């Protein structure tokens, strides 16, 4: 069983869906392709695949393609799809599961910078219990090697006092760190 893609035939893997189901807790197989998710998705137009296609690819087990897709990283997690899905499938949760899998399997070729941004964001939270925009951006810009992009916006934001110089820590930082620890365990 295979599917003819533009890059040649790919074998179907009908068991892949079980893994994603487990990771996301979503009954993906219930999809009847009404496309309501895609119609309402704010990022689908800008991504290589649309939510309904991602669901179908999971059913076919086109793992490599999904993990390398830009969609899983472009998804802003607004959850419009899940809120509207008549079959109650929360695609945002599916996307999260796929991101995790992509990070784990280092299949980051789709949108490299997005995982970098995610990491920078999470690192900042881990450190301070909340985001410190300046250090997060510094980390992100360094790693993504786009040091001078958006510099003008950054300066404007700085002038308006949107960036604090020093990070502010929250009171119960310990608990946040505990969350990170627990998550890493799984």
């Amino acid at each position, binding site marked *: 069983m295979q599917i003819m893609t533009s890059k040649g035939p790919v074998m*179907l893997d009908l068991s892949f869906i079980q893994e994603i189901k487990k990771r996301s807790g979503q009954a993906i197989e219930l999809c009847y392709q009404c496309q309501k998710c895609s119609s309402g998705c704010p990022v689908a137009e800008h991504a290589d695949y649309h939510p309904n296609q991602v669901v179908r690819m999971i059913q076919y087990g086109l793992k490599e393609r999904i993990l390398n897709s830009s969609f899983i990283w472009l998804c802003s997690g607004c959850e419009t799809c899940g809120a509207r899905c008549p*079959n109650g499938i929360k695609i945002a949760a599916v996307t999260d599961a796929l991101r995790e899998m992509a990070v784990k399997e280092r299949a980051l070729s789709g949108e490299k910078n997005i995982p970098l941004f995610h990491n920078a964001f999470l690192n900042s939270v881990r450190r301070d219990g909340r985001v410190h925009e300046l250090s997060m951006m510094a980390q992100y810009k360094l790693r993504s090697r786009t040091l001078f992009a958006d510099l003008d916006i950054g300066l404007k934001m700085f002038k308006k006092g949107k960036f604090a110089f020093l990070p502010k820590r929250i009171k119960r930082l310990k608990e946040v760190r505990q969350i990170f620890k627990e998550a890493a365990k799984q």
Partner: protein
Amino acid sequence: MPGVFAGGDAVTGPKTVIEAVAAGKLAAESIHQYLQGLELKNTFKVSEEKVAPLRFAGDEIPRFEPEPVSCAEPVERAKNFSEVSAGYTLQQAKKEAERCLNCGVCSECLECTKVCLPAAIDHSMSDEEIELAAGAVILSPGFEPFDARLRQEFGWGIYPNVLTSIQFERMLSASGPFQGHLVRPSDKTEPKKIAFIQCIGSRDSTDKGSEYCSAVCCMYATKQAIIAQEHVPGLETAIFYIDVRAFGKDFEKYYDRARLEHGVRYEKCIVSTVRELQQEKTLRIKYRKANGKFAEEDFDLVVLSVGLRPSASAGELAGRTGIKLNEYGFCQPDEFKPGCTSKEGVFVSGAFCGPKDIPETVVESSAAAAHASCLLSTARGSLTAAKEYPPERDVSDEEPSVGVFVCNCGINIGGIINVPEVVKYAGGLRNVKYAEEFLFTCSQDNIQKIKERIIEYGLNRLVVASCTPRTHAPLFMSSMREAGLNPHLFEQANIREHSAWVHRDQPAAATEKAKELVSMSVAKACLLEPVATSFIEVNRRALVAGGGMAGITAALSLAGQGFDVYLVEKEKELGGNARNLFYTIQGNNPQVLLGRLVNQLQENPRITVLTGAEIKEVSGYVGNYRTKVKLGREIRELTHGVVIMAIGAREARPEEYMYGEHPSVLTQTELEHKIVGNELPGVKNIVMIQCVGSRQEGRPYCSRICCSHAIKNALKIKEINPAANVFILYRDVRMYGFMEKYYKKARSKGVIFIRYDLENKPSVTASGSHLTLQVNDPVLGEQVSLDADLLVLSTGVAPRSDNEKLSWLFKVALTADRFFAEAHMKLRPVDFAADGIYLCGLGHSPKLLGESIAQANAAAVRAVTLLSKDRLESLGIVATVDEDCCKGCGLCVAVCAYDARYLDRENGMIARVHEVLCQGCGACVASCPSGASQQKGFAKQQIIAMADAALG
């Protein structure tokens, strides 16, 4: 009582203070007169004042802003105490008063009781509890539409131009809020583009909607789109859908017409949200197109195809009657007992059993009636009373003496036509003895008055100038019988539809036309002659043609209702297609049912089963058929009064996908045999193709059952071997109603559904025992190739070749698809156009076993409506023959569509009329060159008299 005076509300009921004061003064004056010993001038009397007309209907009154009260300028006001507000002038006051709509929120002023001349309003009425003794109860509380507010993303209740389908249906109606004009509620302009969004609240597993499919929305949206286009030429319509479920009889044809003839656009995509452009109130919809691109389109109106919810009273009703409801709150009957509830003697019908269209509703209601009729068969007729009429007066020697009654029909006629003028005119016509005007001629008291006038004035002809005879003629005619006149000495002039309604704008001309219509009717009435109806005896035995599940059910129902039945089956064995069904999607076993029913058949003394029997010849007519049946070498003649056609159908034979060429290619029925016979070891990959030969040239209709057949088998395979891979290649998944549940179940079990379209059919190749399917996946736009150990074809239902012969033998019609054609698609789904012949089962159209059973019971009870009569009465307005003129040419016999004309060769070749069969269509009258054939009540002279009266 002398010396006692009264006034106020105690006398008049609630009234205004002013009236109370007036009454008090009146009383005082009367007391004064009384005490002075004068004659009392004022006795109490309910005054008949004129009441201003209600004026809040429609746009009768143009909208006016309130009349501003003129105030003095501030400069003028300074330093004085003069009146600031000048108040209204007389003219201004009148103008302001004109704005009053007299809307009359009820303050119990009882003005309404005064203006209602027939005194139909009674404010003192209160709820009453009535106890009825009944042997059976049929529950049909119907359904409620889904509350569109629950799916707020579509903006219903927020954006004025988003409507539910129910609102839209009202808008399309002539009696609707805009008199049938299709306009946007926001600005009353005609829309140019309308979007319909399907499955609102249906096929929705979240807590907002209902899991099941509402079964009717695809077709009603299609209908509304077509009708909307007829309302507004050039209108564009688009329907956003998941699957188009055009599964009913001839529905696919309608869907085809919508797309191909009317250009209704179908977009296979459900939209996520409807946005409103605030200025224009236009609605913007973003959706994913079939080619994977996104589109944004603006629509003037958006119609939400809301689904069906159980009736709000369903729960309470279930509680009181002790019946069980299903998980959705509907009273879903057992699969094999449609119309029955969990409680004996309580039956159900209609949308209360689950969402369904009109034909199914009518069928299921009739089925419920059949069950009740079986239960109560011994009591049949015990509560009916025959009406007694006085003997008919012989008017043959009397000169015509016509009474004309002109109806106002409230304001329907009287508002346009000058009725008193028509009455005066009618009174002056030749032979008119009496003319009178009524507010509502059909009201009980006026019917009584008509009877009195007939006797008082010795009238012998009656003309009522009112509405259509279709609805009211029987009422007036029966009043004539009660007054001792032959009811056919009646003529009705339709001055409402034919004049008042159509010439609303020209009251004077409408009045003239009404006069002419009346004079025509009078001219005809003068020539009317009494008509005697005739009767034939009814042979109270039924013939059921076909011994499948439908035929068996119909025969058992008829016997249960107390009638003898011949059950004729062509094959040696009973059961028909049911013999190939081993389990249903709901998990029941048809074989068990079949075995039980066959036993019941054999034990029932009322039923004669003839197997291996072929119908050879049919003669006779309703109530008295003679059918020759060939049993082996013997020919047996059966006499019976009615026929139930339960002919069945067959599984179509596939002609594609290597069927018959490769051993691993099967039909669904063949697969079912293999599953039951446990013949599928080692089969891992199974591919099913839907709509094989269906919904395309050759067999353009949808076979309705194939989707559930495939899913049923897919679920069975998954049950036996959860590791099996099942793919179903489909065009639309038509799992209507509660069956949606099983579609969902199949998906949850991992059955993969891949959609294909006619331009991109799957293809199959074989190498050895191995099959490979190529199919385009439209979601990804890529070609998928699937390995298949088995390829199963859902091939649909085809009509039997016998249908042609039987349609000819019984003189009943076939549809273009060669199934039997019922009398009316929606309202008479088990009747043929001719009386005395009924149909059910697959011969009518493809359907599920339970649906066949329902239809069989329905056909049986319809047959009983005829069988339970001991004689049939003719119509009255039947054809008649002038024997002196007739030369027996037989043209009338040849043109009669009802077998009502025949040549009497024994008595000098005269064409005669079977009055009971005659439908009064007049074809024979038109064909007769010598004028020997005439129609009672429509004789040539009568028609010419009308024409003369009209032309002057």
